[in-house]
């Protein structure tokens, strides 16, 4: 996606070719070549333009994302928890997305999946996509830390409230683009404070994207002098943001 914005057409062609080859029969992608399992990264691919990826490949990717959910939202797991006396049978917890199958849901993979389904919902009004999209948004709203912002997903894992992280707060605000909720209002001042204190490129990127999504990015936001872009994902997300500032927002636009 960053290369699309950078205008490197040959690299983009090679990238799409590789993605088409690497898609697994179930419609998903592994996080790297040696892993024989589809994971959350599938939602990243589902964000790419279908006309360049191929409609068929894109559709399988979207279906994989829509059909994926965390272990704790499954009937067998909930029944087991109920038998152990650890929860009620009818959970009001919205199902989110896990990093890898058969594990719990977390804010980061849920945010990426919500973004992918949100983008797809502008092309396709299927009711199952809308249902999962609503569930994902509700998961994020339910998992906000006390006082605002987001940790990885657990709000009280040890019996006391967790504190939010800048990166995950930015991701959740990005995914909640277009949503109006008290949780967002509470979290925006915190995100703006994090942005002003930010020393990490990953956090800087996601906070800017989140605040941009909510229309609250300060016009004078500037990175700290010591902030460095050290990894490919950090540089890539910065490129995507630069394009968004110029009106080419590939994450939110259809």
């Amino acid at each position, binding site marked *: 996606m960053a290369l699309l914005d950078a205008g490197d057409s040959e690299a983009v062609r090679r990238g799409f070719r590789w993605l088409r080859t690497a898609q697994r029969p179930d419609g998903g992608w592994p*996080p790297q070549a040696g892993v024989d399992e589809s994971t959350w990264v599938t939602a990243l691919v589902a964000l790419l333009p279908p006309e360049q990826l191929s409609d068929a490949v894109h559709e399988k990717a979207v279906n994989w994302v829509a059909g994926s959910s965390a272990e704790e939202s499954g009937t067998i797991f909930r029944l087991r928890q109920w038998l152990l006396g650890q929860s009620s049978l009818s959970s009001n917890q919205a199902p989110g997305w896990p*990093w890898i199958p058969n594990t719990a849901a977390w804010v980061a993979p849920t945010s990426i999946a919500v973004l992918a389904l949100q983008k797809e919902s502008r092309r396709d009004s299927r009711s199952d996509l809308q249902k999962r999209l609503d569930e994902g948004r509700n998961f994020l709203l339910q998992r906000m830390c006390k006082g605002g912002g987001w940790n990885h997903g657990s709000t009280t894992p040890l019996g006391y409230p967790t504190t939010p992280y800048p990166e995950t707060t930015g991701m959740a605000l990005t995914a909640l683009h277009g949503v109006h909720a008290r949780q967002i209002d509470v979290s925006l001042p915190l995100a703006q404070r994090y942005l002003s204190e930010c020393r990490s490129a990953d956090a800087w990127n996601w906070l800017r994207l989140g605040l941009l999504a909510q229309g609250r990015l300060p016009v004078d936001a500037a990175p700290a002098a010591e902030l460095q872009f050290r990894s490919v994902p950090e540089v890539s997300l910065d490129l995507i943001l630069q394009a968004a500032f110029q009106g080419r927002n590939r994450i939110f636009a259809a």
Partner: protein
Amino acid sequence: MNAQSSLTRRAWLSGSAGLAVLSGCARKSQPASAPPVSVVRAPAYDQRLYDTVRRVLQDHRLNVRGRRVLLKPNLVEFEPASTINTSPLLVHAVYEAVRQMGAAEVHIGEGPGHRRNTLDLAEAAGYFQAVPKFEDVFVDLNLDAVTRVRPSRQVSHIQKLYLPNTALAADVLISIPKMKTHHWVGATLSMKNLFGLVPGGVYGWPKNMLHWAGINESIIDLHAAFPRQFAVVDGIIGMEGNGPIQGTPKPAGVLVAGRDVRAVDATCCRIMGIDPLKIAYLQPTSANDASLLASDIPQIGETLISTMTPFELIPEFQGIRLVNPA
């Protein structure tokens, strides 16, 4: 996970540790050739550490000549003022020592479980300052290429275990953890430090797969996946109470080291005032696992009694307190 289910799991673990202790009672004592554990005084993070570490590694005749060595510190959070991360000065002291001992290749590698921005974390923890050309020797294990490992014997429910190639290619893995209490397993030391080898790039942040597979069981499986280990535990200032993140600093003034990392961890537990026979992941899982009775662990350096510094334990773990240090 809610508080109720965590207590249930703790109760279960206490039970399983108890069973393991009972099964351990019938074991024969350790052979006389068991590798020793060093307990040495290290009162502060200063230049004396370089000499102390060099002497410890020489005492153990650690053979690194011509070999690839991976140093695995414990990097957790952006808390420069706290004792949450392994001291960069200690890691550099080990780095310099193994280079002087003729190692062909030395890398420092870590894959933090909570934060994705590993290099930013390392910078905040002081690694860029303490280790010259840090970025040239550091490997973010969360993003390393991986290989699937199929353990011959597995006790956890890990379905597919992928580990970073840098760690699998190392001839010697030196675990350099912080001496800390842990709100799930009682104490986090050399063996628990191996959670940082599990690639977040595959399993995500936090490394929830390890919790689903059983925390204690996963520690045992990871330990078994790396047969050539050595441990240097940073007990100069540890963490007590609600570790490994929200605890409070606890000066213990020691380094604990050895090639039998299970025995190193058991010794650390005794220094912390914790009964290692009540730490579930330290219990024997095969006939090859040595006894952890204090009398069966050859020790060099300071005596246990002289270095014992009981760490505060959260209420849920009062039951692991060491009653009889002898």
